[in-house]
């Protein structure tokens, strides 16, 4: 059985766009039948959340550095539809990994 994964959604000033991304990420996990816990925070809170929440990946609708130890994905494809399939694949890959 797949262990529960954790996703962190980091919002810029617009929490609403982050919420949209969080909903979409949950849908991806649900469709794949993989338990996923999603937490939302502001971009400034990310370093602390990486410590405490230990996400397997991060999705952001704002601007973030991508040289963190956790993979960071831009959430823009959820809003524009461009690159959405690719983003889904990348997320599914992490969800399906054993860890």
């Amino acid at each position, binding site marked *: 059985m797949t262990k529960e994964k954790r996703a962190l959604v980091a919002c810029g000033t617009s929490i609403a*766009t982050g919420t949209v991304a969080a909903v979409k990420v949950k849908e991806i996990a649900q469709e794949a039948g993989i338990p996923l816990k999603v937490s939302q925070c502001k971009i400034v809170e990310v370093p602390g959340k990486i410590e405490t929440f230990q996400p397997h990946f991060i999705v952001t609708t704002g*601007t973030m550095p991508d040289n963190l130890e956790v993979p960071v994905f831009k959430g823009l494809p959820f809003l524009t539809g461009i690159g959405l399939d690719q983003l889904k694949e990348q997320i599914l890959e992490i969800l399906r990994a054993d860890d």
Partner: protein
Amino acid sequence: MDKTSKQPETEQPRVYEELVITPMRAESATDAITQLGARLQAGGFVKDSWTQATLERERTFATGLPIPEMGVAIPHTDAIHVLKPAIAVGVPDEPVEFGEMGSLDGQVPVRIICTLAMVRSESLATLLQRLIGMFQSPGVLTQIAGAQNPADIVAIFDQHLLSAPFE
């Protein structure tokens, strides 16, 4: 009389004819947001702080979406500046450059600007999901950009947004 507390009513954000500018003559994103903000204010939908707040928000968090069919921008700001929910729509006759959402320096040539005024922040996320579904439906953006008058644009948005009640 100033309402200092918000009633917990359900919001149904709509586009109203007086909130549509088509064709719009806009020199810049700032110009476009200011024009639409003026309409929202005149209609009693937002406080006079809305335009400034939205312009500032756009500077730090750009709302240009590079949708393949055509670029769309969704400027918005905090619920505290809003009195009644509404969407104002501007269709510029020439594309207007907006910053790309989530990018440090990307730019998007925008053909449709939808300024969103929501009284409750939670409802904004719901509205965004519906709008995104609508924008990604093939042909809808072309319809909006090609509409001859505000009433047609109101009808297109009504069709897509009024399908289910808003919480």
